[in-house]
């Protein structure tokens, strides 16, 4: 899985990430997603050649299944934001 952690010895079998590893993964993910936000891209992978550095860090710190999961969740959260904004508009309109 490629965990870059200093306090782990040689691993013969894949081990689950501990708090440090998880934290690192989340941080690189957040950096990458911030970059995407700035570029206005929701779906990871559609940004072309920008955010390359962040993307590499991200994909090096997290398991593939996690990357897929986070990317998918980003798309869903974005769609939900739109829906929430629309319902909020309706609510505001109804209040008047």
């Amino acid at each position, binding site marked *: 899985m490629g965990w870059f952690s200093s306090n782990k010895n040689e691993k013969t079998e894949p081990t689950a990430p501990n708090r440090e590893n*998880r934290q690192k993964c989340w941080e690189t993910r957040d950096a990458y997603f911030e970059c995407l936000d700035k570029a206005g891209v929701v779906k990871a992978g559609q940004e072309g050649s920008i955010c390359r550095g962040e993307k590499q860090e991200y994909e090096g710190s997290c*398991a593939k299944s996690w990357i897929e999961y986070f990317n998918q969740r980003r798309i869903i959260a974005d769609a939900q934001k739109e829906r929430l904004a629309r319902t909020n508009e309706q609510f505001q309109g109804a209040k008047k």
Partner: protein
Amino acid sequence: MTRPGLLQNAKRFTSIQTQSRALQSSAQRLIYRRARPAVTHGNQVQPTAFGKVTKRFASQLPERNSIGAFTPTAAALFVVAGIGLAFYFRNEKTRLEEEREKERSAKSYGRPQVGGPFSLTTHGNKSFTQDDLLGKWSLVYFGFTNCPDICPAEMDKMTEVINSAQKYHGDIFLPVFISVDPARDSTSQISQYLEDFHSQFVGLVGDYATTKAVCKAYRVYFSTPPNADPNGDYLVDHSIFIYLMDPEGKFVDAFGQVVTSADAQAKINGYIEEWRKDHGGSRL
């Protein structure tokens, strides 16, 4: 007419009235002696020794100020009864409402069938069954060590809840982590995983069949297939709840993701109080 004439007429009138009343009462007396049911009030039927007296008095009233059977006494009784009933009903209603609320919140009324027998292995490679939950308030969470963020967040929440609850109640809690990923979560893996959370955490795992059984007992959904690859990189979809079990091993409540640590603590305190009341101030 002159004044004295007026007075004479008045006297005559009153005397006529008294005479007619006397006649009427004697007539009534006759009627009652023949034991005929009274018609004047509608309620009272057979004359008794008392009855005759009251009827004689009461029967005079209809002449003066009654509307049909509605005499002043009846009116007074009606109002008094009405007020009395109103108060009674109000009290009863509040009393019943309180009872119903108590029943609804009481665990003995409609407790969901969550929990049950199971046999798993701890992260220390010891056997663990549902009996080992007894005697403490257990918080049970189903997850897997390769979980991206939800399981760690929930486990952190549990750690926080237990830390603060222990300060208040003492060492009466048992946090439990049950793995839904038996293919990858070995006991040593779980042991390592638990190092990041509360020191008293007990990690449990079993083979696929026992995992399926314990999930069924706790109504937990999990998506791991029976033939999962132990070297695989996959995520397990599963129900996300923290199950609170009382010292008798019975299910109390399930805290979802939206329940904050503070909310959970407040609820747990409430449940402990209730349980102690039901169990005569037991220490637990």
